[in-house]
Structures are given as structure tokens and as C-alpha cells.
């Protein structure tokens, strides 16, 4: 028994079935997330950090960063453990934003593998996921396409 005996839970390339729908857990976006994001990214745009300014924008209040929605969605995906130890790399991402996310909104994702392609190097393949991000009212706030390089073998140390 030891550190090397842990079994990673991620799905291998072959285990992903095209067209299957998966739902992640949900997370409430709080003001603390916004402040932490500003500090980490260095993006202190007034839209997100200046309440007086935010009230005068087309949104009528400060809103969450689009990129907070993005990184929280990747966290929600990771927390399903379906990528643990088998994901080799994120190769390509695209995100479009449909609705602003406001403080205290709760977001979750639906994700669907839509394309699979083996790579030249054996033992892995590319899986493209279509990801939809919704808020607590089931309104779609963002849509993503993520291309992951995924191993054909279970992860191990």
C-alpha cells in the first residue's frame, strides 16, 4: 500500500461514447470568486470590479468575468473525475458567451463527446466535447468546444 497504488478514475479514450450526455455538479459564483480572479489574472476591468461603473453599463450591475465561467466549467468537468489521470492535454478551446453571469448565479455544465480521432502516436486519441453552461434558470450562459488528448490506458504513477 502506498502513494503509487491509487487508481485514477478517468475514462480512457475508448471508454468515451459519442453522443452520450453528462451533467456536472453545480457551483455558485460568488463575489469572492470575482475578487480572487481579478487578483490572479491581473484583469481589474471596471465592469467587474467597480460597482458604481457596473450600475451604468448595459448589464446594470457588476457581472462575473466570462473567464470565471470558463475556468469554473473546467473545474466542474474535472470534479466529475471522468478526466482524472487519462487526460494528457487540452489542445484547443472555444467559448462563446450568450448571457452575463451575475453574482450568486449557480452554474453547471452539460457535456457531450462529439468527435473522436486516434492520433499518429499510438496509445492516445483526440476527443472533442461540446459543453453547454447553464445558470440556475436553465438559461444557457456559454457554449464551449474543448479538444482533449486522452490516453488509451488508465492513469498510473
Amino acid at each position, binding site marked *: 500500500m502506498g502513494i503509487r497504488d491509487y487508481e485514477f478514475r478517468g475514462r480512457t479514450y475508448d471508454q468515451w461514447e459519442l453522443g452520450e450526455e453528462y451533467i456536472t455538479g453545480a457551483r455558485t459564483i460568488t463575489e469572492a*470568486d470575482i475578487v480572487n480572479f481579478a487578483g490572479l489574472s491581473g484583469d481589474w476591468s471596471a465592469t467587474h470590479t467597480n460597482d458604481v461603473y457596473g450600475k*451604468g453599463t448595459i448589464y446594470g450591475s457588476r457581472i462575473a468575468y466570462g473567464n470565471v465561467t*470558463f475556468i469554473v466549467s473546467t473545474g466542474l468537468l*474535472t470534479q466529475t473525475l471522468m478526466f482524472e*489521470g487519462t487526460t494528457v*492535454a487540452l489542445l484547443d478551446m472555444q467559448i462563446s*458567451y450568450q448571457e452575463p453571469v451575475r453574482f450568486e448565479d449557480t452554474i453547471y455544465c452539460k457535456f457531450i463527446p462529439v468527435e473522436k480521432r486516434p492520433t499518429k502516436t499510438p496509445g492516445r486519441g483526440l476527443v472533442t466535447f461540446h459543453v453547454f453552461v447553464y445558470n440556475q434558470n436553465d438559461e444557457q450562459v456559454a457554449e464551449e468546444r474543448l479538444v482533449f488528448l486522452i490516453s488509451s490506458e488508465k*492513469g498510473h504513477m
Partner: protein
Amino acid sequence: MGVLHYDFKGMLYDEWELNRAYTTGARTICEADVARYCSLSGDYSPLYTNALYAENTVYGRPIVPGGLTFIIANGLDCQTLWVDGSYIGLLDQQMRFLRPVYVGDTICLTMTPTAKRLSKKPGRGIITYRICVFNQRDEMVMDGTWVILMATDRDHME
């Protein structure tokens, strides 16, 4: 004098020149950035957080999350003040991750406007940028496109 009287420094829709590459300052990504990224995103993938595991990956050591490089690139853009107050909203972002980034790497980016069009609503226009992120060896680590809604005049910057 007061909170409402700050003059925003951002460039308006018309001030961005098509096909000119605007280069930002640079930032070194440190281990604390990775830890903070994991705690904020909730993504604790062993690729960034488990050195023992990372030894046996194609990288040989932990890598920086692609999402972290991406948001630091956004921050570098904002710190130039080019979009200070003139930025209304982010519409679409695409990035290809070309090379791994490691702790200790220093990144900067170039933003090149490749397309501009006015939106239907007055006071706003849409600019498409090609975004190239480089490391300290001038190797491109990310390449992509951002579509940003930008104000066309100072009146729409409040």
C-alpha cells in the same frame, strides 16, 4: 472630483488599427499562481498538482494549466489600459494550446485586429483579434482569436 470623474484610458473602436500587432508587457508564471488557479477553478488535475505523476507524463514535470496561461494573457491585455472603459463585453474566444508552459516561464502576447464591424446598436462595434502568446524563447505557446464588443465613442464609456 470623485469616483465618477475618472477618465478611462482605453482605445475606442476606431482607434484600433487593422493588422497592427499590439504587444503587451510580460509576466512570469510562478508556483503560487498555479496553486491559486487550482483553488479558484476547482481543477486539481494531477498534471499540475502531482509531481510524482507528472514525472511519467510526456512533459516529465508538472505543467501550468492552459486556463491559467489564458487568463494571465487576458490580464496582460487589461494592464496595458488599451481596453480600459472601452471594452463592453467579450463575445467569443478561441485558443489553441501549442506548447506546454512551465512554472518559471515568462509570457507576453500580441493582439492584432483582423476584422472590425459596427454592431446594430449605436455606440458599439465588434473587433476580432488574432491573439498570439509567446514564452521567453519567443516560442508561440498559444494562438487564437478573441471577439470583443468595443465602445465607439466616449459617451458610451460610462
